[in-house]
């Protein structure tokens, strides 16, 4: 049992994975001596050596492309993309190679690989440092996509992702890295990786979130509770595959749902979640599933990013609108 930030929990999880399996390699820009710009790989190179914690040349396609080769040689590469906006030079390797090799080879070439991406905004950064690219990866068959939202999940999910035989895009809400601490019991059995979780119960409406917006939704639920309205909050945790049974159960009780993410609303995860809820809970819905997210503009300058990002007020506004039906 120890109290950790998300950053420390991820670091500890990576360390545990490297201790458990000598085939686990960490690779990326500045992951060595520096320990990554967010210090998630802090100390790993010192302890596991330069052969297992590899500073790469400055080329994301190169990182992912060589990781494919390492995986083919029996290694389990964990690639760090420095910031969400810099995953795109590697996009081709991810969607055309990483995602397709298992299928292409009829299962003969497994692709155990984790692509760690610090994602989302709210840290006052310049352009390209606050993107939410998850929908693009979730749309790509062959990839799995998960997002952690708290230190306990960070510690366990990164290990589960590394142990998985499939390639996983692992999203880390960078805004939370050094935010809240939590008790992490490193001995307790974790929840399964590909399962969503009800993080607060309620009956008035269902809030669906992942990564950074889980906290937003919990605060919104808190605020609503003070006005006597109990909102259920679900942390999706896994974006591909989606685990929506708990969501359907919830919506069948509440009749109303709001999906909240930082990504652009248009074709964001919310559109898929909304479409599936409507398919599965058609007769239970009292209102259309509403979506709250980043606007359909590029990410704005950071001084006004809090206007762009969904916050407590915008979530509650959507809840009001849903309840008004």
């Amino acid at each position, binding site marked *: 049992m120890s109290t950790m930030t998300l950053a420390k929990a991820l670091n500890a999880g990576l360390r545990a994975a490297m201790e458990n399996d000598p085939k686990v390699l960490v690779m990326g820009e500045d992951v060595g001596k520096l320990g990554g710009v967010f210090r998630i790989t802090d100390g790993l190179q010192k302890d596991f050596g330069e052969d297992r914690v590899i500073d790469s040349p400055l080329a994301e396609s190169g990182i992912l*492309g060589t990781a494919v080769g390492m995986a083919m040689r029996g290694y389990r590469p964990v690639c760090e993309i420095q910031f969400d906006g810099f995953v795109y030079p590697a996009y081709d390797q991810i969607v055309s190679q990483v995602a397709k090799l298992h299928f292409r*080879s009829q299962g003969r070439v497994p692709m155990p690989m984790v692509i760690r991406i610090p994602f989302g905004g709210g840290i006052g950064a310049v352009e390209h440092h606050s993107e939410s690219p998850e929908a693009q990866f979730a749309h790509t068959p062959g990839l799995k996509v998960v997002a952690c939202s708290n230190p306990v999940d960070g510690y366990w999910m990164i290990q589960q992702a590394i142990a998985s035989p499939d390639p996983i895009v692992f999203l880390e809400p960078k805004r939370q890295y050094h935010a809240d601490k939590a008790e992490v019991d490193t001995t307790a059995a974790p929840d399964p990786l590909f399962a969503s979780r009800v993080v607060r119960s309620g009956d008035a409406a269902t809030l669906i979130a992942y990564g950074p917006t889980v906290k937003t939704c919990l605060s919104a639920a808190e605020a609503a509770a003070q006005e006597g309205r109990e909102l259920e909050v679900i942390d999706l945790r896994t974006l591909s595959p989606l685990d929506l049974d708990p969501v359907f159960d919830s919506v069948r009780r509440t009749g109303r749902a709001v999906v909240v993410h930082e990504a652009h609303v248009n074709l964001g995860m919310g559109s898929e979640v909304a479409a599936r809820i409507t398919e599965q809970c058609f007769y239970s819905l009292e209102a259309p599933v509403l979506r709250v997210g980043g606007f359909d503009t590029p990410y704005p300058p950071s001084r006004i990013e809090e206007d762009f990002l969904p916050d407590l007020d915008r979530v509650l506004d959507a809840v009001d609108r849903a309840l008004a039906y």
Partner: protein
Amino acid sequence: MTAVPDVFHASQAAWHGGGPELVQLLTPEGERVEHPGITLDLGDAAQEAEAIRGFYRDMVLTRRIDTEATALQRHGELGIWAQLLGQEAAQIGSGRALRPQDFVFPTYREHGVAYCRGVDPLDLLGLFRGVDHGRWDPADHNFGLYTIVIGAQTLHAVGYAMGVQRDGAVGTGDEDRDTAVLAYFGDGASSQGDVNESFVFGASYHTPVVFFCQNNQWAISEPIERQSRIPLYQRALGFGFPGVRVDGNDVLATYAVTQAALQRAREGQGPTFIEAYTYRMGAHTTTDDPTRYRLNDDLERWKLRDPIERVRVYLVRNGLADEAFFAEIEDEAARMGEHLRAGCKALGDPDPRGIFDLVYAEQTPELAAQRDEFAAYLASFEEVAR
């Protein structure tokens, strides 16, 4: 106009005409020649003759695979075929230089190399027939699946070589352990970011990789000049490892150069770039029409440099092969043809229900459900039909 300072010309001079010449050991006329610094090591005279007869046989069979597949495409048995006509020496010379433990990353045209790695040529047809995306097991042959996205596989090769390094399988001096990785790509591919990044990574980590570029002068309709104004092998120099241009229509030179480069890799001396200077005698693929973009003259000139003919002349002139030898190979080629024709037609379509199970190593509930729905949907038709 301002005079251009000499410093630029000085550095230009370093590459204009510089670097080693085309490495050739067997002329188009079938004469054995020497090239400084390159030794053809095929054992004693008898062993060498045997090896060269082997190369000849490999090239003839490879060409037969190619012409047979082309014919199968014409007959509608394949959707498309990427012809290698003219590139037999480049592929057999390099393919035969490999040791079993070496690993190969091909493009979509390395049928000759596949054959060297013991892949049944029939297995190459599945992809072109449209029944699979590649049906051999890479691990069985140390031969990766064909890669269609231009250049992507060169990074895989470097990553694989990084794995080899981590396995301690470089520079041990153990012949059966030290491992090289051979990455194939075309002249067109040399322009891709990925290929250049593979040079960066390959050089940075000093990986046991050989970059084997078949410069067949064309990338579909675009001549090599669009990709590079200087000889391609010189690209390597700018990344800090050696580049060599070899006569890719000369199986002996290609073998010798590749063998040496692979050995450098195995010994831990880092990457080498080989430009196999050759020519795509056929169309880009069976759907291409090269008369739209190139003149016949070139083709005629290159016919005189045929990779197979020069070996035949050499063998005959030096009394190293008789009629029976050639006849036997013809027979073998005919059997290969028969094997492909019969086998290709027997390559059945996969069960569409199966695709859902191939996406992940660990199946997801979503896809399992999608599979069930689809199966039920198909069954509903069968019921109707019954």
